[in-house]
């Protein structure tokens, strides 16, 4: 058991917090809340420490902690962070305290709720930190359970349906990934004796031995699990239900973090392990991504439920992420990575805002809302900023991601000959984003204020404190994305080495 890395502490801290909470009597609600929040803030502090110690020049994983816990099957506890996972880890560490703070209004079964949230934090962090396929899968599935319970216990009226649907959908994809992991492990056994789950080793020694056919199937098996999580069209139908029914913090985490796991998986495993299949399948992937962009936007526009609108917008946004990834050039991929963070901030923020509104009005139906900017000026202002971020307004973070994704996809050699057409369609998605976001603002904030909403209180200090970090980051990334790209650059270049193609063909 080598030296404990900071990453292991990050994983253990929420777990310990959860256990501590489970040990407390259930009526100590205040203590439970503060312990949960304190724990997640502690993780955030560790994450910031991680950021300080991170060396952007190094392409490989850093802060690695390696422990061969199951030598007979060659499975290892191996965690590390590189430029690809760095921002996602930080996003996770940031979103959880916010989500927990937003959960202050939860009154029912607080103990279980907070414990599950902290377990979920361990799981999500683990997914982004794991450098061993088995460990990754364990964390991947580990996130499923707390999320299902969060939706199913503290969710809306159709929560059970949504929770079960979420669970089954995810499960349906991940079992195929499991089989693919098993297959890779079995293939590695003759080479190593015990077999291994180390993706880096596989990328170097196993992938070149795989036939095109095998690569294709394994890519698809992994891809299915990730595609459902992203979610890619047409595997998205769990998402609106899960989002709508989940409690606010659940939606936030789902949108901001869990969806990222899928896209992250594509980049981390599919591209490095099955490079030739990835090149071959880049175009279909991109086509689905573009369909998702347009479909999500259209569906989003036609919703009458605020939360459902945001949910469908996620489908559209994640389409941009997938388009960027399938461009398979540094521009597209780095932009996609940043876009993941952006989506986490803006859609996470929108879900928080929906929740705050719902706590006041107890409805999310546009037909009952309207004119609220008059009653809630601060809320309205924040909603507009976050909404603009979501629709990719230049100067805010969404633009950086979306525009560079488009830029990457436009010049992608992997997507030729359809690169230009697909990019054009995706760019039209930006127009549609304006349509549904502006319509949302119109229907929530504008128009005459109904009498029943006249006395609504504006955001309180806690809610402002939740939104403030998001707003700061939305602006910061929008105005100065350089450091964000700089940290991921080396790792992305390194990770794309296998799928790299001449991309400046147009010059």
């Amino acid at each position: 058991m080598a030296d404990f890395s900071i990453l292991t502490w990050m994983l253990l801290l929420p777990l310990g917090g959860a256990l501590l909470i489970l040990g407390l009597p259930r009526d100590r609600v205040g203590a439970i809340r503060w312990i949960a929040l304190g724990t997640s803030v502690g993780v955030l502090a560790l994450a910031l420490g991680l950021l300080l110690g991170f060396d952007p020049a190094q392409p490989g994983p850093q802060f690695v902690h390696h422990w061969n816990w199951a030598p007979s099957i060659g499975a290892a506890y191996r965690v590390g962070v590189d430029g690809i996972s760095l921002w996602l880890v930080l996003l996770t560490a940031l979103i959880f305290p916010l989500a927990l703070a937003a959960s202050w209004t939860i009154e029912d079964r607080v103990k279980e709720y907070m414990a599950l949230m902290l377990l979920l934090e361990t799981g999500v962090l683990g997914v982004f930190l794991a450098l061993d396929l088995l460990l990754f899968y364990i964390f991947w599935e580990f996130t499923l359970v707390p999320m299902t319970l969060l939706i199913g216990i503290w969710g809306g009226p159709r929560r059970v349906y949504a929770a079960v649907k979420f669970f089954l959908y995810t499960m349906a994809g991940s079992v195929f990934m499991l089989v693919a992991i098993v297959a890779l492990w079995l293939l590695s056994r003759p080479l190593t004796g015990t077999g291994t789950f180390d993706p880096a080793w596989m990328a170097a020694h196993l992938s070149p031995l795989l036939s095109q056919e095998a690569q294709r199937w394994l890519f698809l098996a992994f891809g299915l699990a990730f595609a459902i999580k992203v979610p890619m069209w047409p595997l998205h139908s769990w998402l609106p239900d899960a989002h709508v029914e989940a409690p606010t913090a659940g939606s936030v985490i789902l949108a901001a973090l869990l969806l990222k796991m899928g896209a992250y998986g594509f980049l981390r495993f599919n591209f490095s392990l099955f490079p030739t299949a990835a090149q071959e399948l880049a175009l279909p992937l991109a086509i689905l991504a573009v369909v998702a962009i347009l479909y999500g936007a259209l569906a989003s526009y036609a919703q009458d439920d605020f939360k459902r609108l945001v949910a469908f917008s996620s489908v559209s946004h994640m389409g941009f992420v997938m388009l960027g990834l399938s461009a398979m050039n540094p521009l597209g991929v780095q932009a996609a990575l940043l876009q993941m963070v952006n989506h986490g901030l803006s859609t996470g923020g929108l879900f928080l805002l929906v929740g705050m509104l719902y706590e006041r009005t107890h409805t999310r139906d546009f037909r009952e809302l309207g004119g609220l900017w008059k009653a809630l000026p601060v809320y309205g202002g924040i909603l507009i900023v976050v909404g603009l971020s979501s629709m990719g307004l230049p100067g805010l973070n969404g633009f950086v991601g979306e525009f560079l994704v488009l830029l990457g996809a436009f010049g992608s050699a992997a997507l030729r000959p359809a690169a230009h057409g697909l990019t054009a369609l995706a760019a039209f998605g930006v127009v549609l984003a304006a349509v549904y976001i502006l319509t949302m603002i119109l229907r929530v904030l504008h128009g005459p204020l109904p009498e029943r909403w006249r006395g609504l209180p504006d955001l309180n200090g806690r809610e402002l404190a939740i939104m403030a970090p998001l707003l700061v980051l939305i602006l910061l990334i929008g105005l100065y994305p350089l450091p964000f790209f700089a940290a991921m650059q080396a790792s992305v270049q390194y990770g794309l080495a296998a799928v790299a193609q001449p991309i400046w063909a147009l010059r």
Partner: protein
Amino acid sequence: MVWMPLLPTLILTAGALGLLLAEAFRRPGSTTGMAWGALGITALGMGATSALATWGTIEGIYSMVLWDRSAFWLSLTILVGAGIAILLSRHYLADRGIERGEYYVFLLLAAAGMLLMAVAADLLIVFLALEWLSFPLYVLAGFARPRVESEEAALKYFLLGAFASAFLVFGIALIFAGTGLTNLNDLAAWLRRPDPDAQPLVWVGGALLLVALGFKVAAVPFHLWTPDVYEGAPTPVTGFMAAATKTAAVAALIRVFLIGMGPALALWSGPVALMAVATMIVGNGVALLQSNFKRMMAYSSIAHAGYLLMGLLGDPALAVPGVMFYLLAYTLATMGAFAVAVGMADPHGEDQSFRAYAGVARGSPGMGTAMAIFMLSLIGVPPTAGFFAKLLLFAAAWQAGWVALVMVGIITTVISAYFYLRVVVAMWMGPGEAARLPGPYPWVRFSVALTGVGTLLLGVLWLMLGGLSL
């Protein structure tokens, strides 16, 4: 030390007879002492099993029995199942007015028969062990009499069990007629010889053996008794049947088909694979429609029989440790689930429908959490033991080229998630009021805690301690 392989069996049998004697002289009243006694005997059996763990392979008593790694794991699993069943029975019996000392005697005797099955090396012993473990189970299934469901369960189990053992005996007879052998190692040696003339008898005999063992392991189409018997039997007995009997039946399958018929495995793999497919599909499919926990668990046990059959076909280097671990993981989760079911059962008129589970976790979050862990393990969600178990079985089957089987396995796994989740959904998300029922007894709580922690940690521990090389 030719009787060494029998040591666990002997301990349990002797202990059971001692308890029987004690029962004869027991003053009327509580049977707590009997339960403690039975627990002690089980613990002793475990001790003996563990002591034998390092002995390697021992052949005993005119090659009738054989101790090996498999025997160790199977015995351990059976004893775990038996021990927990005893823990669960103590108050369950008392609350329902069926508190009779013979219960523990039969439980121990059934376990002893199962332990014998784990070391059987001769078809005759397989037959006798099967009967040995069955007789007490017939009685135990009907132990809640005069409750009519319990009696119906017992009679169904008995009649069909007798029917199945007739197939077994006739199958042995045909094999004997064809080869003059009943010893499984000799049979394997005989099969390795090129002697095509008498083979049809052996094959038909083998087919009939498969019927009987398929019945015990609850494989489709020999599975139909399972839900009815599980539903009717007293709940701790159901758990015991689901876990330990399954283990013993798999032990028989391993002995007969992997060892005895080992050289002809290629011939059997086809039908066994079909059985596995049908079992996985039917078990998981019909479980979807159940609204009674015990029936659902019965179909779950059928489904797991399918996974085990798939595992048995796999690459032996992975399949043997895989199946052993699977059985242990399955036993812990199943016994745990039944422990919760016992803990949640209303002493006055037990209702095991999901409706009765609604909202229970609000009053007893510990039980709810444990049940969730068990259900997740049965689905195969990491980091529970069930995940690693399924992982190994899938790996074994894949390695042996059973890709289609693995595909059926994973698809049915997804289906299974639905009905296992229903329990969790009912307990956690149901509309019920808090704390409807009195909290479970300490014995039950202890079992739940034990199996819960075990289910959570077993997989990781097992792999840490050596995994496949154990």
